């Protein structure tokens, strides 16, 4: 018997497979396709204090082996999420991670506080790495001091474990990871999207109305693996790894690099059943490589 379970701060996971924020809405659409109880957990779409309309369309462009998105944190606002989305999620036996965004430290703190009060939410994920908004977003994630301060403030206000989602668009990811660890983060999520752009040859304009967007999908996997590998060496808190995962073998590579669990984003758009497919395939892939539990594979490349 292969043991797929993983225990992380605030999260008792049946398996390490977690749909990534922004790629799974609030679960409703995928619940029409399969039983969400199969999943390790789910990360819901970024919440802000007020409702947001996000960026103008086009918001999606394709690149070689990846996609660019510039959704711009569209969401109905934290109150509507608590009122309309969380009660629905309560029916599942599924830890819910709330992704939090904002323009100011105060907004992050307030949104985190309100979400943490809700019993459906088991952990917070601070999105300090969204490349698609003018204020806040990535700015918090590219400077170690700012990231640490934000983490500390949220930790003070919210009584639930806090995962900080790191931006890959930085010179020194280890520095930022260390800073938020010291500031009290319970875990890290990495990586968010790389900042990219495509230009339409016919119009001469950027394909995304927003100009730049976040690059995700298989193209970015080697960058994610590298960053997780580097950070794992230097921090003690667990890492939820993501960036280009497509199948159970990719999951194993992330575990080797140092992830304790994984986020699946873009792959949900390619194969809507990718999460249950990976969960089905994981035991076989682990066994094939001589492991009998997820735990044994975590950080294996460092041994």
């Amino acid at each position: 018997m292969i043991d797929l379970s993983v225990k992380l701060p605030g999260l008792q996971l049946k398996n390490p497979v977690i749909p990534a924020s922004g790629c799974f809405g609030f679960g409703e659409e995928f619940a029409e396709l399969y039983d969400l109880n199969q999943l390790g957990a789910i990360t819901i779409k970024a919440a802000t204090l007020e409702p947001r309309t996000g960026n103008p369309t086009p918001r999606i462009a394709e690149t070689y082996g990846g996609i660019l998105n510039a959704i711009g944190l569209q969401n109905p606002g934290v109150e509507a999420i608590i009122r309309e989305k969380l009660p629905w999620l309560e029916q599942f036996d599924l830890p819910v991670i709330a992704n939090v965004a904002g323009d100011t430290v105060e907004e992050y703190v307030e949104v985190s506080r309100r979400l943490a009060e809700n019993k459906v939410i088991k952990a917070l994920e601070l999105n300090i790495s969204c490349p698609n908004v003018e204020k806040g977003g990535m700015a918090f994630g590219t400077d170690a001091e700012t990231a640490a301060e934000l983490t500390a403030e949220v930790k003070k206000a919210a009584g639930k474990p806090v995962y900080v989602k790191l931006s890959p668009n930085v010179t020194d990811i280890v520095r930022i990871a260390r800073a938020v660890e010291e500031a009290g983060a319970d875990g890290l999520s990495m990586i968010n999207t790389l900042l990219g752009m495509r230009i339409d040859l016919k119009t001469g304009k950027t394909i995304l109305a927003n100009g730049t967007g976040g690059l995700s999908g298989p193209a970015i996997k080697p960058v994610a693996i590298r960053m997780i590998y580097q950070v794992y060496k230097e921090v003690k808190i667990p890492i939820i790894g993501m960036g280009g995962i497509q199948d159970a073998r990719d999951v194993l590579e992330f575990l080797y690099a140092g992830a304790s669990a994984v986020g699946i984003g873009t792959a949900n758009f390619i194969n809507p059943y990718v999460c249950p497919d990976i969960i089905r395939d994981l035991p076989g892939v682990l066994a094939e490589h001589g492991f009998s539990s997820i735990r044994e594979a975590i950080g294996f490349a460092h041994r």
Partner: protein
Amino acid sequence: MKLTEDMLVMKNEEIAPGIYELVLKGENVRLMKEAGQFVNIQLEGKGLVLRRPFSICEINLPEKEFKVIYRVQGEGTGYLAGIEAGERLNVFGPLGRGFPEPALKEGETALLIGGGIGTPPLYELARRLHGRGNKVITVLGFQDKDGVFYEGEFSQFSEVHVATMDGSYGYKGNVLELIGHLQLDFDVLYACGPMAMLKAIQEAYAKEKRGYISLEERMACGIGACYGCVCDKGGELPYQKRVCKEGPVFALNEVIL
């Protein structure tokens, strides 16, 4: 049961320059209920990641087949054009909401307006409305004579008028000019085509007529999870609707184009 299926390609042929007719066979065809829904097709071409959305053009339930008509536009459709009968394509769908047929009462006339590659989703609709006994008028607009397709097919179920921009076939001008020229009378309109056409139709008819338009937007998930494909419905925040989930068909006056 999965909503994705490796369907068998029965046919994939060029029917006009750069326009292809693709027929797929699979179990999930029996889920295809409404004209105007779409499918999201996975393509194995190099570097391609996202599925490509295509409207369902015709549903053949007894044979478990459905048809898509597509224009070669870029890399994905270019790759698709190279697929041969006998190969398989992974199809996700049916997705979205189609044209509401019962919008039309007995004895009422439907006007179907198709612009270029916007024509296909109207075909299954024409067939159904005709089957229900309604009068159907179809107005199709194309760039030029070479680009014209499906005139004959639509004429099985409807009165068909064709306009071309350069006048090389049918009426010279756009579909709205042709409708005005013919002084066509109708109760409900259904339109699909380029944004400029839809805007003009909205401007001309949104106040006085019932009608439905089908929108396109760049998509990622196709099911409403990523918020990539929103359109503006006005009103209270958050006022966007997802083209893939609440659409692609919207009432003529419910979206701000």
